[in-house]
């Protein structure tokens, strides 16, 4: 009897062990699949042009890493300009977005006015409108306003994000009413209450939506591609496409990979610093922007 029990226990333990090994094997496999392209882009970017092209079977490491591709890519294509444009676009768009979002979220969370519920419902239903439907008219609008190949044209239609208004409103609404009434009794204006009380309390959410918007701006491709055809206004996504199609010639892959590394690094650094916030923000109902 005792013996039998031991046997069963041993068997279960062995089974558990196998499950565990398989589980980690699966997780390890996928981690490898995710990281490998990043490894490959860095590896390729430090191989010299001649070394890369002489490898009929690509090597998994290099013994003579070189920085020449990074120098070349900055010298031969206006990568620095693309980066600068993207930073300008990202910063201005994000700042305006946060400003507009905070104001709207505050009105919905705290102020009472006629038509509030209807307006909020309309806002929420706008979340379901696919970008593809509105982008056509926006393109015509921006063209008619003569704003193609300008930062204004890039930024204006990229500002609004109903989802962030919703996210921030939920957070504002969680702040106890008592604080608002106390502030009112003290004679604090709504504006002061918003900037001195509400925003500091809800800072984590504001930071989350800021980071999410920065990522969205940095990666945006479709709208910039439509409204800019002058390389002086290209963002990194369009820049990388231009590099691929004409910049370095299709064959200079190491230099292309150097460009890919350069435009990927800022976001990866941002991710490593803020990964908890980013994942939390996205899991609260975000979709890819």
């Amino acid at each position, binding site marked *: 009897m005792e013996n039998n029990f031991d046997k069963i226990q041993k068997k279960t333990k062995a089974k558990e062990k196998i499950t565990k090994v398989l*589980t*980690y094997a*699966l*997780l390890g496999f996928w981690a490898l*699949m*995710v*990281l490998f392209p*990043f490894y*490959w882009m860095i590896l*390729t970017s430090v191989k010299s042009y001649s070394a890369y*092209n002489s490898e*009929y*079977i*690509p090597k998994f490491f290099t013994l003579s890493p070189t920085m020449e591709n990074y120098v070349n890519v900055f010298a031969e294509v206006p990568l620095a300009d693309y980066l600068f444009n993207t930073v300008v676009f990202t910063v201005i768009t994000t700042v305006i977005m946060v400003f*507009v979002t905070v104001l*709207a979220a505050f*009105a919905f969370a705290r*102020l*009472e*006015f*006629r038509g*509030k519920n209807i*307006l909020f419902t309309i*806002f929420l239903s*706008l979340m379901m*409108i*696919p970008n*593809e*439907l*509105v*982008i*056509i*008219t*926006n393109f*015509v609008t921006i*063209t008619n306003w003569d704003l193609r190949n300008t930062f204004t044209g890039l930024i204006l239609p990229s*500002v*609004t994000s109903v989802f962030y208004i919703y996210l921030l409103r939920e957070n504002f609404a969680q702040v106890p009413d008592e604080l608002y009434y106390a502030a009112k009794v003290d004679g604090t204006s*709504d504006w002061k209450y918003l900037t001195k009380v509400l925003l500091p309390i809800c800072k984590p959410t504001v930071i989350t939506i800021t980071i999410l918007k920065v990522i969205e701006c940095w*990666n945006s*491709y479709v709208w910039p*591609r*439509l409204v800019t055809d002058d390389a002086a206004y290209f963002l*990194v*996504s369009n820049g*990388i496409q231009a590099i*691929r*199609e004409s910049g370095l010639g299709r064959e200079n892959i190491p230099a*292309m*990979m150097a460009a*890919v590394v350069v*435009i990927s690094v800022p*976001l*990866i650094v*941002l*991710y490593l610093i803020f*990964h908890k916030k980013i*994942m939390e923000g*996205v*899991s609260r109902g975000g979709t890819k922007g």
Partner: protein
Amino acid sequence: MEKNNLKAWLYLLPSILFLGVFMVYPLIDVFIYSFEEGYNSASGIFFGVGTYNYSYILRDPYFLQAVKNTFILVIITVPLSTAFALLISVALSSVKKLRELFETIFFLPYVTNTLAVGLVFMILFKSTPYSDGLMNVILGVFGMSPIDFIDGPYWAKMLVLSVYTVWVVLPFKILILTSALASVNRTYYDAAMVDGTPKWRIFTKITLPMISPTLFYLIITGFIGAFKAYSDAVALFGTNLNVAEMNTIVGYIYDMLYGNSGGYPSFASAAAIVLFVIVLTITCINLLVSKKHVHY
């Protein structure tokens, strides 16, 4: 409570302006465009009103190719990515050691630039005169002859596009499923353990029903997202997707709007509305199915 109408509207004014000009107005306008025949964006005139734009795009071989590509991509990637995300999330939820590290790694593709990383996939799969590319070298180990996945046969290209799409959409799905799995009440599992329920049964009878709302949410958003595929294809095959036979519906819309074949906002609008109707239909079917199967 006092009503401060004016002040509230003042706070809302910026967002109403932005949304009004760049979302509500375009939404109405796109329907109007789609029925204006022969609209010229330069002169702003059109010849008549009717359904010519729709019948034109429905006969355009490029559009039909785009529709076919998009449907194939959806049918391959949505089930595959959802099932694989579920598998990984379950594995992730069952471990403690290194869990946070794995979670951080798995989410990484979400933040990276789709076009930039797509180029890495392109060189991994591309076969050039100098090199067959890493993928072909690996396939060669298994005795397969090299295929050009980027400029080669249709199904090879579709395969790479599907692989890359799955790679891109998995992080979001894993994240959402992992948090859904974490929120399942532990007492159900404890009760099942006491009863000696086998693991597979616990999974199908407790875990799956408990996370089914999330699963269906992911399937619905997965369908919507896959129907709007575009930049993944651009990253792999370049901007001239019609030549590569790899265009998608969204790609067709943008090509009609601008680019070498562009300047036709009416055709683009008609295509966008066709896409919208397709997505709406699929979403409604999904919702009907989910009503039957999802446990709330």
